[in-house]
């Protein structure tokens, strides 16, 4: 009996220690070991790390700006049958904003750096990881997946100059003539008025400028997967007609809970003012960016009129009442906020009923000195 007891204690100590050591390391059990390590038992001497960790975290490349990126580059690692490719990086990078950003090509890049393609895709021989294409395959898969969509061609000379022509000096075209050329400026509409078959409100007014400038949406938030082929299609001149569901799906990402009349009306709708949201912005709030108060993601987060939503640090000791244009007198300064502002709803009209029985109005008989604002 005693032996069994001792054995159990030893066992539990071992289990506890092992657990402590593992949890002390970077594994909290949420990441699968095989996401970073190739072998079953990685050690500090032989961590057997996977070259490109394809974790979800490594997908984030949104922190890079176009300014950091090169305008153009010569892709020459694999010259053989064909000459190097002069690649207009700038144009591709600019236009990728309508799709998946830099991540369209620079997939699996960590947030703080853009590793060169050849770091994960070996230039020669067979890939270390067989399911990962080598450099030739990686390049061609990236380029051709879009290029053949609009050219309907798989000709090499679209990107490459034949090596034979280069050596013979018979090149008639300058392969570098595309370098540094930007995509023609796309005119962004400020307002679009659509006529729809919806009888109760055929007119839909869409303020494009508000969504971009005011609500700070990124192109790709609405223009999802609109890569080059969306406009540059070999056969079609206008984008194909969208179904009712497809049209609404773009708006419904944010406006799902809104009524039809939010967008549809019998006539053109006025631009956005904050009054529509039920709260006219006062002097201090008009200069703020929307995101200052509504910080969360693509959707404009709903706030109620409680000042503490943003001004969480304010209480009776540090709030200067003069900012709202009223210097409280000595008597009222001693009161709790909630004595006048019922349930701490500061946006609603304050009441004097808690102390005064004469139905007085705070504006006619203010609890202090009104300041000129």
């Amino acid at each position: 009996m005693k032996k069994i007891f001792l054995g159990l204690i030893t066992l539990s100590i071992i289990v506890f220690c092992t657990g402590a050591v593992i949890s002390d390391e970077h594994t909290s059990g949420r990441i699968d070991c095989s996401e970073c390590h190739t072998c079953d038992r990685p050690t500090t001497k032989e961590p057997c790390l996977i070259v490109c960790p394809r974790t979800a975290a490594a997908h984030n490349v949104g922190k890079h700006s176009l300014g950091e990126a090169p305008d153009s580059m010569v892709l020459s690692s694999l010259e053989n049958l064909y000459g190097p490719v002069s690649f207009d990086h700038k144009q591709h990078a600019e236009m990728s904003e309508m799709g998946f950003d830099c991540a369209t090509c620079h997939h699996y890049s960590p947030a703080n750096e853009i590793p060169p393609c050849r770091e994960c895709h070996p230039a020669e021989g067979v890939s270390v990881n067989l399911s990962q294409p080598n450099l030739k395959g990686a390049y061609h898969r990236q380029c051709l997946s879009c290029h053949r969509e609009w050219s309907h061609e798989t000709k090499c000379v679209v990107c490459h100059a034949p090596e034979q022509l280069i050596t013979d000096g018979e090149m008639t075209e300058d392969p570098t003539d595309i370098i540094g050329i930007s995509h023609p400026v796309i005119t962004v509409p400020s307002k679009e008025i659509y006529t729809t078959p919806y009888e109760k409100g055929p007119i839909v007014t869409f303020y494009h400028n508000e969504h971009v400038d005011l609500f700070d949406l990124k192109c790709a938030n609405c223009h999802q997967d609109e890569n080059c082929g969306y406009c540059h299609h070999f056969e079609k001149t206008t984008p194909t007609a969208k179904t009712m569901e497809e049209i609404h799906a773009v708006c419904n990402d944010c406006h799902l809970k809104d009524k039809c009349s939010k967008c549809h009306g019998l006539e053109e709708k006025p631009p956005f003012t904050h009054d529509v949201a039920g709260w006219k912005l006062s002097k201090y709030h008009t200069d703020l960016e929307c995101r200052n108060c509504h910080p969360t993601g693509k959707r404009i987060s709903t706030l109620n009129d409680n000042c503490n939503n943003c001004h969480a640090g304010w209480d009776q000791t540090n709030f200067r009442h003069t900012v709202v244009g009223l210097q409280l007198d000595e008597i009222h300064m001693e009161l709790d906020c909630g004595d006048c502002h019922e349930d701490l709803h500061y946006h609603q009209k304050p009441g004097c009923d808690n102390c005064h029985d004469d139905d007085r109005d705070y504006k006619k008989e203010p609890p202090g000195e009104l300041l000129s604002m």
Partner: protein
Amino acid sequence: MDKSRRKFLSTAAVATASASMLATTGQASERLEHNQEELFSVLVDSTACIGCRKCEYACNKTHELNDNPLSFFEDRSVLQERRRPEHDAFTVVNAYKDARAKEGEAYVKVQCMHCNDPACVSACLVGALSKDRHGPVLYDAWKCIGCRYCMVSCPFQVPAYEYQDAVAPRVRKCNFCTERIHNGERPACVEICPNEALMFGTRKEMLDVAYGRMSANPDKYDKHVYGEHEVGGTSWIYLTHAGFQAAGFPVLDVQSPAEITENIQHGIFKSFLPPLALYGLLGLIMHASGQKEDSEDSKNA
């Protein structure tokens, strides 16, 4: 007498049947003894194929089939027609409908599948076709008598014939670039494929890669590696999205045609028992009828 003869016949029949059964089972276990580590294979990922026909170009050049320049293969209109390998084109690329693919069509490269248990090798009367231990199914024009049984037997209808050659026509088909493989190189089509839609390695590796891709992108691939089990397995294996039938491959049994036919034929003649039984039976009939005649003669006398 009658009783004993009947007994003998039934015993003989049972013995023959069980012998052929034994032969059949014995035969099955002897087949498919390929070492998966040294058997080479190519994985064709049809979802990565863009129909550029560079493989056709490289193949033609390597096997010196014709002098068509690279620009000849830039004609994509031929993809729409479902082509078969020809005497001057060991591999062809065909388009097929695939809703997931960007242009509504995906592409698939067709060539000799290099079966593990090739029907053509089994059908060849003179041993002109043979299976190399590394995978290739090879053809020896010197042995060939031009019966074209290989063409009839092939479940994929691959071998082609030089009908236009009146003097020394040959059966033509992909030889898996056997010289290149033996020199440690990859087949020419695999080497040139710009999109790495073709991958070369041991059969075990390629199956691992195929299943790895399938589990990594479950929506991208049909849950069937074509050629893993078909006709006893093939050296060329395929991944598709729309399914192998859409890609134009036939639905085939796991058992190879060679195994089925050889089991029947070899089974019957195994240990020379059926001929012995047949001749035994004939001898008995002769013996019995001779006796009968003798007795009738003695009666008449």
